[in-house]
């Protein structure tokens, strides 16, 4: 029979339980996504690979865009932006689609955005080996700055979760959020240098571009992977501060609103 929680270690147990809950929910979501498809996790690679081929063809062959190592250049953009897009386009529905979890007494709702962003992180991670292969084929070899990759992942994770919280709570009271987010993400992709380089944008417009946190982030990934440089610490620090601020405010409003979620379901 299981051991009952005693009062001394109840805090420790709560953390352990949250971690366990997180892991079973992430694995549940991954299994549901791919369990019955014959290609399985391969589907996680299909979208970025297709985008890679289309962008490479259109911009290199048709539009004759001159960017060095264009396939890896575009693949980095597609993967980094894909994580954001995948997570945010789904975060609207996380409360409304998990009714059975939300109505479970004591279920920590604040876990749901983390679960969803992590599922997308997993997709990102299984595509990374392909990116490394592509870099290798283009003659790019690992360099010391590659050790900053975990740091980049953390910063991006903070940013995405920070945006996921407010969007998730907004969608419960205003169901159109999900659709608006979907459309906006499509548009934002075009004002983010995913398939073009920021150098091709007129200099005087750069400050506007940098308002979009994804611009600095994709820039940092490319600095590290393509050029073998350490990422700009000021950029990373700014992004971290933005991410943490979003996370704190978003989580607060999410918690404050969470008791209304149930009534809206």
């Amino acid at each position, binding site marked *: *029979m*299981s*051991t*009952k*929680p005693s009062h001394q270690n109840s805090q420790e*147990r709560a953390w*352990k*339980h949250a971690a*366990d*809950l997180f*892991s*079973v*929910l992430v694995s*549940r979501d991954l*299994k*549901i996504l791919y*369990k*019955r498809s014959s290609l399985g996790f391969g589907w996680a690679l299909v979208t970025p690979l297709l985008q890679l081929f289309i962008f490479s063809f259109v911009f290199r062959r048709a539009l004759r865009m001159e960017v060095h190592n264009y396939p890896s250049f575009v693949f980095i953009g597609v993967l980094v932006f894909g994580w954001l897009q995948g997570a945010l386009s789904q975060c609207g529905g996380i409360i409304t689609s998990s*009714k*059975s*979890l*939300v*109505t*479970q*007494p*004591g*279920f920590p709702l604040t876990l749901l955005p983390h679960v969803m962003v992590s599922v997308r992180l997993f997709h990102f991670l299984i595509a990374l080996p392909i990116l490394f292969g592509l870099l290798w084929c283009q003659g790019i070899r690992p360099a010391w700055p590659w050790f900053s990759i975990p740091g980049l992942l953390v910063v991006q994770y903070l940013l995405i979760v920070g945006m996921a919280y407010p969007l998730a709570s907004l969608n419960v*009271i*205003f*169901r159109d959020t999900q659709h608006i987010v979907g459309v906006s993400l499509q548009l934002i992709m075009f004002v983010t240098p995913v398939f073009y380089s920021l150098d091709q944008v007129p200099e005087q417009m750069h400050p506007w571009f940098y308002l979009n946190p994804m611009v600095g982030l994709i820039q940092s990934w490319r600095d590290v992977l393509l050029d073998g440089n350490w990422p700009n610490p000021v950029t990373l620090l700014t992004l971290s501060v933005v991410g943490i601020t979003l996370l704190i405010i978003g989580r607060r409003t999410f918690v404050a609103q969470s*008791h209304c979620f*149930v*009534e*809206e379901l």
Partner: protein
Amino acid sequence: MNALVKADGLGKTFTAKPTTAKRLHLSSLARPSRTADPFWALRNVSFEVARGEMMGIVGANGAGKSTLLRLLGGIGRPTTGTLEMNGRIGALLELGGGFQGDLTGRENAILAAVVAGLLKSEALELLPEIIRFAELENFIDAPIRTYSTGMTMRLAFAVAVHTEPEIMLVDEFLAVGDLAFQAKCNARIAKLREAGCAIVLVSHGMDQIREQCDRALWLRRGEVVACDTAKAVATYYEQEMREESLRRTPETLPLSTASGTPALRKENRFGSMEMEISGVTLRPGPKLTCGAPLAVEIQFQCPATLDSPIFALSITRPDGMICLDTNTRSARIPIPPLHGDGFIQLTIERLDLAAGAYFINVGVFDSNWSHAYDFHWHMYQIFMEGGSAHKGILAPPNQWTMKLA
């Protein structure tokens, strides 16, 4: 006695004014905002549930039972009053609601146990016991979508009772699986109670309330009508239901059913007549030999669609002694929403009643027993003949054997 659940003056309103969602809708921007009265789903509800106690909650649909259960589960906040829940809460609200069809029974069981508050290691440790309890040893690695409803319910129930909650919230359960499994569930519930678990049970079945609960709380339109011993509340409730049926019996009740049996309003026929029992056919007929089969066909007319009514049949002696009492709810016969004419038949394989006259009483009730649509009491008579019994009710086949040493 230390109370695990302590509710004091609980109230919950749902405002009918447009919600934030509606206010944000562009279409409603032009309209002036209405200030509607709040709707009190619960009002001034106070009660306590002690360690090891089982509290029943009864009431018609919309009386606030589910709202109360949700509040107890910490889902939503009470508008007024205070609520203390001193212990880990387990819930049997939507059995199997969180299950994922594509995952196996094992994966779902672990998931449900962790969601219910166990650590993964504890869930893995308990899993063999859960599987044994659910009697799913041979199917546990098949996807849930291949399970029957009964199997899914058994698994959900098994997980819920094994997570050892200190307070358990239950919405109409124990209609899980066959009788043997139900007995097992009841035994498990009794064991939980012995271990000090407080149970709050919402039920429509007064027999269940009487048999299992210590106390019961009766809600009507969000307010407490009675909070007393389970027996007392069940009796009040049933009495009220009878009065409600009487009250709803129209003044212009047809004087006889379609088959010509005379009916006297409020004497042997009750009900709101939203649905009418137009005739009862006994086969082979009203004169039966002891041990013979009997089929009772109940013809009905249902002018408007009624949601899953319950058909009931009883056999009584002229003095009112009930010899047989059965209904489609307890037999778990699914009745779809009804509309139009039709019939339902109860077949009794052998009727081993002692010789004498008996009445067949038939009725059809609203889906939560709140009132009768039509109830025919002592209108159809049967006569049993033969049989070896002299007095008493039963006359099953029997023989005497004697042996002298």
